[in-house]
């Protein structure tokens, strides 16, 4: 860590170091529901008042179940959907202020690894073509220069020797190799930030480890800021320093990875940890203690704490009425749960 800071000091102005690379402020992503195509019928509140910072050179993970708003949060950060409210600041500037040119420049600085590796690569393009396209779009005119860049990039993701792969099509590659190409494409314009949405969930155990290790190496080497989105807490500790737990459109706990694993505070985080199996024979001998029910509708979420209908610790008269604020329970550990109103 300290070594990285020294490195960073070489090329970053001092004041920029204080500033996180990305700041998300009270972000709301609401999708409008229409009846008959034009009558307002409510909103899907996929992201509802989310605030966090992504420091330079750090890998964070956003963890939550399907439908909790993870992908919507990412699309908003990529500038693909417009916030209903709130701000996304990149290097201190709102990504939506400054028009199309500014947005295009911003997107050049962000790499994206999408959820499904098998659908991610266009089947009719060669690997060379797939990696060349973003360079052409970025205005790199010299063909030879592009080729050199592509070769270096294939070497970085260890699809080697590059010559063997340049003219292949995606279906000729294994799932792991395809995912490496997706990563190469995300990195080829030297982004400052990488967003990886479930980058390994479709892969076999061994290939998953390969890809996690690759991402980890690239992140450290390039001093990249990474947002790793996943529903699987068990892979997080191999990659991210910090975890944000998301439930029903809200971040409900934020802490370092170690702290979340050793000292989780939110009842939903307890449930998530409790639901994960380490491979042990005794698992088969007992039922797991799991909260009943399913995540709520995001159109009419429950009032107060959104987890209250499933929470065994719910405090009557409080949890179903008031939205819990973020209480700080330790240095760098926040939790949105009324249980900690006195501790904080």
């Amino acid at each position, binding site marked *: 860590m300290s070594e990285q800071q020294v490195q960073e000091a070489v090329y970053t102005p001092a004041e920029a170091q204080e500033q996180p690379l990305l700041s998300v402020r009270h972000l709301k992503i609401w999708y409008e529901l229409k009846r008959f195509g034009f009558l307002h019928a409510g909103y899907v509140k996929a992201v509802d008042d989310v605030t966090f910072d992504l420091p330079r050179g750090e890998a964070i993970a956003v963890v939550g179940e399907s439908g909790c708003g993870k992908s919507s949060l990412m699309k908003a950060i990529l500038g693909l959907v417009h916030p209903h409210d709130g701000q996304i600041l990149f290097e201190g500037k709102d990504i939506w202020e400054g028009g199309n040119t500014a947005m295009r420049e911003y997107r050049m600085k962000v790499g994206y690894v999408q959820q499904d590796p098998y659908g991610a690569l266009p089947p009719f393009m060669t690997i060379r073509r797939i990696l060349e396209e973003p360079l052409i779009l970025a205005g790199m005119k010299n063909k030879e220069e592009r080729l050199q860049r592509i070769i270096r990039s294939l070497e970085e993701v260890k699809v080697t020797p590059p010559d063997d792969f340049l003219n292949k099509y995606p279906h000729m590659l294994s799932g792991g190799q395809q995912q490496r190409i997706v990563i190469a494409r995300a990195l080829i314009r030297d982004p400052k930030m990488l967003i990886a949405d479930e980058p390994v969930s479709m892969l076999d155990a061994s290939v998953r*480890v390969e890809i996690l290790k690759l991402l980890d190496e690239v992140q450290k080497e390039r001093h990249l800021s990474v947002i790793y989105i996943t529903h*699987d807490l068990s892979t997080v500790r191999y990659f991210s320093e910090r975890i944000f737990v998301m439930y029903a459109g809200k971040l409900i706990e934020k802490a370092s990875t170690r702290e979340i694993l050793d000292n989780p505070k939110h009842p939903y985080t307890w449930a998530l940890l409790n639901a994960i199996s380490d491979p042990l024979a005794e698992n088969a001998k007992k039922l797991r203690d799991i909260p009943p029910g399913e995540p709520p509708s995001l159109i009419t979420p429950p009032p107060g704490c959104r987890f209250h209908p499933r929470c065994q610790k719910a405090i009557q008269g409080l949890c179903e009425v008031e939205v819990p604020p973020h209480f700080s329970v330790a240095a760098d550990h926040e939790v949105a749960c009324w249980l900690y109103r006195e501790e904080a």
Partner: protein
Amino acid sequence: MMIPSDDIQNKALVVEDLVLYFQLTHGIVQAVDHVSFALDKKRAVVVIGESGCGKTSMGRALTRLLPRNVNRYTGKVFIDGVETMSMDDETYRQQVRWVKISQVPQAAMNALNPVLKLKDQVMEPLLLHEKGVSQEEALERVHAVFDFVGVPDGFIERYPFELSGGMRQRVVIAMALITNPAVIVLDEPTSALDVLTQANIYNVLKRIKWEKGTSFVLITHDVATSSELADDVLVMYAGHMMEHSSAEAFFAEPLHPYARMLMAAVPKLYGEEELQFIPGKPPSLLNPPTGCRFADRCPFAMAKCQQEPPTFQLGDRLVKCWLYEKEADGIVTSPEALAGVSA
């Protein structure tokens, strides 16, 4: 018959030398290659291995749900004491499918008929296979089985699209369960689901096993989660069964080099070990190499490994690897030996 018949009678499943090959224009895919194992009643065997190693094909071979391009389908499969491979398709359909063995195929929850109410879909196997069941009785059974797997009663009048993924998965499990088969084959039952939903489904499966005495063949690439149901573990690699052990023995110490390396790639929530991956990739099952199919990735490979290892028996464990030649109690070649290996 060579196997003591009460041994077979007492097993939910006995598989001997099962082979399933597919024909392609340019060769033969050896998807399931001489697999033998036995499964006791009220137990679950989990079949684990990487994508493409033949897990789904093995499930299809057990339930005789075969594609058209079968090249070879041989061996013996005793389900609840009855040999099924020698039956013709019609007899199999009447006496075995749903009655003795039912299956939840990969992605079944997305394959429910969208225009049929859930009760009608779940009832169907019952009406087909239990002669003389009345509509009312069948409906009773649907209510009971929905209750057992935790689908709210009111849902029986609904259509699949009105349910969440987790609820649909419970419905397909209910459908497999309604005829009270001896064995249920589950292919990746929770891979598309969230962790809490997964854990809830495994709770349901455990209760079915304990309370109804059903046996399971659970096919999955998710090793950690498979431990929730596993009594036995069967490791497949490139169409071969590399190891068969009790879950206790396996999770404490896998024997086969592939199994060891696979376990080292499984992320764990706690503990300090680094994750390891297995360099290289599995061989093609289209004209696979002779000898041990893991040899080109195996750190212990030796000259002998160019010959295919037999399946060695060590106590109640089976392992297909030359490293165990000396300590082995014997080689599993004959059905008699197999019947003695009651997992």
